[in-house]
């Protein structure tokens, strides 16, 4: 005959462990909250593939869609590329700037990618990964939405869709500038 306390001890010991495991299984390990949200976006100064300077400082007062991509990122970067261009065309007259940062890539395939999708917004390589690390990028594609006051407001992991971009941009545009 087991003592009374031992009958309760086993479930009492197992339940918290099960609860912890269940919590762990329900959270998505790929969904890592960015500590940057709400903070000032780190300034960067890059040179586009067309050899034009591209600095965040020069975009002050605009809403910036900062997209990190690579030509080897298949299929997500290819999936979102047309949506990015459409978003750019739809919002460029509303004070929105779309900027592409090409990471972990080489120039030739990157340029081929840009030509394939006819991107008309500025794109710049980040050859040493400084900008990517400054934004805590851990994979491509990742897209950051920076408000008019220069704060990072949203982070989108994975292929961006027209709908996701529209939702975030409209909410940022509604804010008083």
């Amino acid at each position, binding site marked *: 005959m087991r003592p009374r306390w031992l009958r309760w001890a086993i479930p009492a*010991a197992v339940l918290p462990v099960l609860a*912890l495991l269940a919590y762990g299984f329900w959270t998505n390990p790929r969904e*890592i*909250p*960015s*500590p*940057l949200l709400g903070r000032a976006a780190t300034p960067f100064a890059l040179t586009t593939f067309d050899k034009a300077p591209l600095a965040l400082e020069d975009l002050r007062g605009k809403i910036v869609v900062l997209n990190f991509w690579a030509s080897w990122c298949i299929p997500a970067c290819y999936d979102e590329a047309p949506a990015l261009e459409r978003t750019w065309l739809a919002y460029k007259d509303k004070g929105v700037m779309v900027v592409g940062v090409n990471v*972990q890539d080489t120039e030739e395939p990157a340029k081929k990618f840009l030509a394939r999708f006819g991107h008309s917004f500025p794109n710049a390589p980040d050859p*040493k*990964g*400084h900008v*990517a*690390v*400054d*934004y*805590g*990028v*851990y*994979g491509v594609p990742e897209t950051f939405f920076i408000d008019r006051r220069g704060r990072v407001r949203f982070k989108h992991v994975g292929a961006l869709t027209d709908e996701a971009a529209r939702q975030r941009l409209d909410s940022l545009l509604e804010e008083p500038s």
Partner: protein
Amino acid sequence: MIRRLLLVLAVSTALSGIAGAAPPVDERVVHEVAAQLRCVVCQNLSVADSPSETANQMRQIIRERLAAGESPEQVREYFVQKYGQWILLSPPKAGFNLLVWVVPFVGLGAGLVLVAVVLRRWSRRPAAVPPTPVDPAMRDRIRREMSGGRRS
């Protein structure tokens, strides 16, 4: 005399040139910082151990920051600022993360207590159970049959 002066000058410029080209960063410190950081594109690898291009770039960033005079703690803090505590391979010993550090020892302690309790019970059991009485007739029969078996 002039020749000697020129020699000193040449050696000192060469030395300063070397010093200028290679910033004095201890590679062991770079490795030490990199080993604490999670390689963001890998599974359970540190930035020090990963051969990936991303990890390579991150090591270079660590090197640059150390060369710029930051302490290893400041470099680590920079990565935490950008990626959150997720970037650290060992979670800091505070808050919810404390569970990770405490639970194994609590579990070990609880296990040891359980083993001690069970062992004490088992060692006490024989004394608690009285030996079963054997019928004298049966005992005689067993003795007889065993000695009979040896003889044949």
